[in-house]
């Protein structure tokens, strides 16, 4: 479903809907390109809310980390995805599947660093 939605977006509209790009475009200039990014985000939030109402256990409600650490992580993800021009969906799915060199390298990099970080943090703070 994750891939299907991004694949339909590509096939129907010719747009690569990587989520960091969608969201960055949305917060910077919501009206750009017919405002489709705002509609995409609206669809996400609507269905997310339906899941929350149907089964709150869909989400983790208690933060695993102190909030300042989560804020730092958010900044790292925001800056990192804008530097690299993509995240798990844009590089990891859309790019890697067309064998784009940049995307494959980016995906290998963020997976390697992500696994190393999570494994070290897990050893220090307790495993998930």
């Amino acid at each position, binding site marked *: *479903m*994750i*891939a299907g*939605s991004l*694949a*339909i977006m*590509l096939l129907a*509209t*010719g747009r690569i*809907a990587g989520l*960091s790009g969608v969201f960055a475009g949305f917060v*910077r200039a919501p009206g750009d390109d*017919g405002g*489709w990014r705002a*509609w*995409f985000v*609206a*669809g*996400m939030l609507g269905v*997310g809310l339906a*899941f*929350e109402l149907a089964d709150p256990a869909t*989400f*983790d*409600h208690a*933060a*695993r980390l102190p*909030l300042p*650490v*989560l*804020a730092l*992580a*958010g*900044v*790292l*993800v*925001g800056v*990192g*995805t*804008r*530097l*690299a021009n993509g*995240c798990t*969906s844009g590089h990891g799915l*859309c*790019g890697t599947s067309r064998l*784009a060199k*940049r995307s494959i*390298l980016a*995906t290998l*990099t963020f*997976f390697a*660093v992500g*696994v190393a*970080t*999570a494994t070290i*943090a*897990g050893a220090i703070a307790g*495993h*998930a």
Partner: protein
Amino acid sequence: MTRLVALACGAVFAAGVCISGMVRPSKVLGFLDLGGAWDATLAVVMASALAVHVVAWQLARRARTPWLGGEWPGPARTVIDARLVGGAALFGLGWGLSGYCPGPAIVSIVSGARGSLVFVAAMAAAMLAFRPAQDG
């Protein structure tokens, strides 16, 4: 029409990350953290998603234009630079710390969980404040 497709695709994307458990950092960290009880189910999610996308690009190559008209994205850029690798490394650091990547994090804010709100607010602020020269 593009807007309706975007709305529907956003909705299906959210359903996908909710059902697969990607919206729960505990699940994502169980996958990224090799030290605990390793949870491989997200590897299956990723692999099947990739398979769907490989087919999508093949279909895209056969059609002259997208179904609703317009143009296909240009060829993927090939420049490998420090910005790409460094950005991906920063992203990996934030992802491995928090268990959130952008898509699932955005969906999570509807739960009202403070952790997700703080994460997404910080990510949005960073995206607003930090605008490297567009090279795309």
